[in-house]
Structure formats: structure tokens, C-alpha cells
């Protein structure tokens, strides 16, 4: 990672970090373009494509029809033939509209062709609940994508990672899904100007601790961090790991931590059943069975679609409270 100098580091909200990431890519890579619904004239409905049309023009910042199968096919066909497309899939919930293009074409083409095709395509998409957008605009479906050989899947939790991972994703010679989180758009932190990479496939220890390892995905990293002080109050010094990458998953960093803490909790926004937490819990006990003092715990959404009413959505989304409750319950405190 080529860290920039200190005077070029500014506070940047997540939404602008995404913008800068895309911008750097389009500046650096001649064959890169971004295509998606309302990315050009509107600058994306989240605003993270603001100004791109002005800087890079219509040929490289492309509004598409509402045709997710077509858009994803555009990404497959253009990447296999020498471009480096960034495809914007407005809401992650819309993967269902183009799952064939993602799963059967994008993820598998290289393998099916015996390694003779390369698809350097990056898909940006927005996941997560929290804004009363109801059942079809709030999902976290990373588990579907991570179950796909040939696909990489990352979930940057903050501005620094969002920018760096977008850059890394576009430099990678494989299809990469960058799953962003809409509830984080306004979150700010220091981000260097210029180009830098955040490696795909490496988790990051956000806080060191000795009693419990919390493995968090995407926005849940912040809930995990928010739980640290309260866990301390009940005598638990938590280590927080930002998984960052779902596929490949950095089992090593997680397992090393658990060898130290002997306890693990996985937290994600998706519904628990069939969520990525099951896979991680399974891996942890496979790799570190003898080190575990308690079952690997999971904190995730209950088994229902995301409800509209704020009264329900609020209790639906996992948070620091749910972590505390779960830890108390499992450790019988």
C-alpha cells in the first residue's frame, strides 16, 4: 500500500471515498469505464458518481436502461474482450435480476474455457438495511456471491477501505463484487489522496483484545467496535476483526486470533440462517476446535424479510446490544 503523505490525508465520507476510488481507476486505466443505472447524468442515486460524467465524458460514464441482465452481460462481454468495466448494480437486492449473468457466466467463464478467458470486471453494489426501504431494498446477500467459485467478494466497512478496495478490485484480473453499505455513506474518516490499494482477501484486526474475537462483516464492524466498552464492563476484552473480504476469506487471521482469545462471535447484517456466519463458524471450529472455550456465537438478522416500519427494522438489524445479549447468553453471565 503506497500510503500518501500526511498533508494529503483528509476526512472523507464513505460516499466520497467511493467516488475517489472510481475516479482514480478511470484516470489510471484507459480501458476502464463505469456503466449502470443513473450513474452518469444523476451521478448515481447515492451521489457517489457525482462529477464523473464531467471529468470522463459519455464514453466512459454510461447510463444504462433498467436492464440488470443486460448490464451484467455488458460487464461480462466487455471484460472478456479487453476492457476493465466497473458495473454499478444500484441495490444489492437486484442481484436476483441478473444472477444468471453473475453466477453462470461471469463467475464461471474462465473455468469453463479452461483458463483461456480473463474477466477483470468489478461490480459495485449497495447492501444493507436501516432506512425503512423495506424488503426489496435492504438485503445483505453476500452469502450467495461467496458460494460462487470464480467470484471475489469484499465488503469495505469504512472510507479508507472503500476507496482502496475499489482500486484493488479493478486491478484484480477476476470478477470482484464490492458490496458497499448504504447506512455508512455519511461516515467520515481520514483518507489519503491519490491511489492506494487495500488487498483483497485480508482481514484486519481493528482492535486487539484477549477474551473474545468478534469477526464482523461490513457495517457491523462499527457495531462490534461500539460493543467493546460495554463488553469491558462485563469483564470481556474483545478483539475486533474486520473480515473485509468474504471471498476469499482470511481464515488465518481469524483463527490466529481465536487461538489467543478462545472465544468467537461472528456478526453480519444478513439473516442468520444460511448467512456467511455459518461458514465462518464452521471454519473456526474446524481449524481451532481445541482452542475454543465456548461455541462460536453468531449475531445476525432474524429469519424474516426486512420489515418496513422503523419500529420493526430497528430491532431487526443486529447491533451492539445484540452482541452484548448474545455474549451474556452464551457465556451464561
Amino acid at each position, binding site marked *: 500500500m503506497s500510503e500518501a503523505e500526511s498533508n494529503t490525508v483528509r476526512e472523507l465520507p464513505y460516499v466520497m471515498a467511493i467516488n475517489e476510488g472510481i475516479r482514480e481507476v478511470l484516470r489510471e486505466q484507459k480501458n476502464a469505464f463505469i456503466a449502470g443505472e443513473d450513474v452518469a447524468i444523476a451521478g448515481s442515486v447515492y451521489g457517489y458518481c457525482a462529477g464523473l460524467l464531467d471529468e470522463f465524458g459519455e464514453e466512459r460514464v454510461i447510463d444504462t436502461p433498467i436492464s440488470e441482465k443486460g448490464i451484467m452481460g455488458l460487464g461480462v462481454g466487455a471484460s472478456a474482450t479487453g476492457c476493465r468495466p466497473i458495473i454499478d448494480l444500484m441495490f444489492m437486492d*437486484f442481484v436476483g435480476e441478473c444472477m444468471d449473468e453473475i453466477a453462470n457466466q461471469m463467475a464461471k467463464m474462465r473455468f469453463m474455457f479452461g483458463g483461456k478467458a480473463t474477466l477483470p470486471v468489478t461490480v459495485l453494489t449497495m447492501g444493507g438495511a436501516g432506512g425503512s426501504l423495506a424488503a426489496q431494498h435492504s438485503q445483505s446477500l453476500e452469502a450467495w456471491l461467496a458460494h460462487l467459485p470464480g467470484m471475489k467478494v469484499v465488503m469495505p466497512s469504512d472510507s479508507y477501505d472503500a476507496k482502496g478496495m475499489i482500486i484493488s478490485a479493478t486491478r484484480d484480473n477476476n470478477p470482484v463484487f464490492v458490496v458497499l453499505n448504504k447506512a455508512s455513506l455519511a461516515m467520515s474518516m481520514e483518507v489519503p489522496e491519490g491511489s492506494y490499494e487495500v488487498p483483497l482477501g485480508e482481514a484486519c484486526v481493528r482492535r486487539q483484545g484477549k477474551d473474545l474475537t468478534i469477526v464482523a462483516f461490513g457495517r457491523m464492524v462499527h457495531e462490534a467496535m461500539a460493543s467493546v466498552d460495554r463488553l469491558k464492563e462485563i469483564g470481556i476484552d474483545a478483539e475486533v476483526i474486520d473480515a473485509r473480504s468474504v471471498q476469499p476469506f482470511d481464515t488465518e487471521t481469524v483463527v490466529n486470533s481465536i487461538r489467543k482469545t478462545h472465544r468467537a462471535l461472528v456478526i453480519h447484517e444478513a439473516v442468520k440462517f444460511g448467512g456467511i456466519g455459518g461458514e465462518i463458524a464452521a471454519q473456526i471450529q474446524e481449524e481451532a476446535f481445541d482452542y475454543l472455550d465456548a461455541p462460536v456465537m453468531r449475531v445476525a438478522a432474524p429469519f424474516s424479510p426486512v420489515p418496513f*416500519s422503523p419500529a420493526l427494522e430497528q430491532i431487526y438489524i443486529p447491533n451492539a446490544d445484540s452482541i452484548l445479549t448474545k455474549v451474556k447468553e452464551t457465556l451464561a453471565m
Partner: protein
Amino acid sequence: MVAKKKTENSNGPSQKILQELHRKMVRIRKFEESAGKMMEDGKIPGALHLYVGQEAVASGVMQHLSNEDWITSTHRGHGHLVAKGGEFKPMFAELFGRSTGYCRGKGGSMHISNMDLGMLGANGIVGGGPPIAMGAAFSNKFKKNKNVSVAFFGDGASNEGSVHEAANMAALYQLPCVFVCENNGYGEYTPQARHQAIVDVADRAAGYGMPGVVCDGMDVMAVYEAAGEAIERARNGEGPTLLECKTYRYYDHVGVRGMGLNYRSDEEVEEWKNKDAIEAFEKRLLQLGVMTKKKIEKVHSSVNQDIEEAIAFANDSPYPLPEELLDNVYNEEA
């Protein structure tokens, strides 16, 4: 082949129908205006897509439907539900996220629905409705009743593969299904010319083997007539029609002022507002002597009254309780 519909018809609809069309439009307009206000007041969370400007379409089409006929709607769905007979109280309650809402607060604006009224839901997925409407039409044909289903969708939605598949199947099986494209010139912030290389979505009908009709979606009588013919064909077992209504939305894609983007000109908006469906129709009703100014005002004030009561009702309604979350995921009846 696209037939342009004429507006006039020698043997016009009854006074009662004209008054109902008017009332429907006023109800939609006022509901939406108030919903916009409530959103700006922070009463309505989430995304709100207002139907203001397009009232003639929902009203003209729904005038031909009973509660036994099904419709599928879009993200911009309140207008369709109001025209289908939706009551303000449970509608506002739903938008407010209360347990007295049509969907017990679980659906909100994008999933507002009422099965008893034959309204198979707004839909958060663009192009989500037409396959469902086709399925409902299949159901009607299967049960050999005379009911129809109507799929509302936008110009933007017409580029979704799901619409293509539904249209082809409806034509193949000669289903009692009417595809109503509300072409308001934009999919979100993208003008039609930047999302398809055609002007009339109805041009796609020939490719499925069904009639395609274009009509003035700002003229409730034009919609009423064109929809009437299409629905009659459907009821008579003569198969589906693609009816395109040229219309316009006055507010932004989402909410009232939306994102403040500069994607369409004030002049364009003004031009369309000059063709306002309600104003034009009220003029006409006066000219025809169907309604007096006073009677029109009475409609407005009675609808206003309904709105006020409904908002009060919604405001006073409780939020769903935490233990209600897991209800309704599955049907537990054996």
C-alpha cells in the same frame, strides 16, 4: 401496428362514471400531495414515489375494474391503490409504518397492497409486476371466470426482461391481461431517449402478437376509452393488449424535491402541468354541465376531510410490536 386513439366517442360514458372518474383523480392527487407533505414532515420514512401528474391513467383504467379484477402496480403505487378503492386510513397508516396499515406496517409505500380490492401490491422491483399480473390472468382463465388483470409499468420498466417474458406468455396463452405502460418520459433521472431507441413502447406489441395502442395519458377520457376496449377484449377471451399512456410526473423521481438534480427543464415541467388532467377534466365537466363549480368544490372538500381524518388515524395508530416481526413470514395454517 400502433393505433393512435382518438379521444372523442359519440356514445359517451354516463354522468355517474364521469363523476367517479373525477373523484378518483382528486382522491389520488390529494392523497399524494398530503403524503409528500407528511414525508417532508418526517412522518413517512423510507422512499416515497409520488404519482401526481399521472392520475388520469390509474383512474381511467380502474373505472373498468371490479374488486374481482387484479392489478399489479409499481414503486409508484399509491395512485393505483386509491383508484382501485384503497381507503386513506390504512394507506396512511401503512406509509407511517403503523400496525393498522394495509400491510401491518411491514410493506410501506413500495409494497402497499390489498388483496380484497384485487391489488397485488406496489413493487419495489422495476418490472416486478407484469409476470405476476400474467400469472393472475392465467389464474382467471384457468378458473374460467370473466375477470381480467392489469399490469401497470413504466417506460423504464419496459426494458426489463421480465416484462418481455410476461408479454410473450400473455399473448401465447391469450390471457385476459392488459399491459398498461405509463410512459412519463423518464426512468428515474434518465430520459426515455437515453434508455431506448424507440418513441412508442407500444411498438413492442407487434413482436408479441398483441395490439399496441398509444393514448394521451393526461386525458382521462382517452384513457377510459382505450382501456375500456383493451379490457373488453381481455374479458371476451381475445387476449392481451399493450396500452401506452403518455404522461408525466410532476414531482421528482423520489420524494417531493428529490435529489435536486438538473435532469429536466422547468419549461418541460410547466408544459405538462398546463395539460393537467384534473384541471382539464374539471373544465370539461363544467362545459358539459355534468358538474357545477360547487359540486366540484364539494368533492375537493370532502376528500380533504377524508385525508385529515386518515392522517389523524394514522398518527394515533400504534407501531407494530417487536413480537410481530416474525409473524407473516410463513402461513402456519395446515
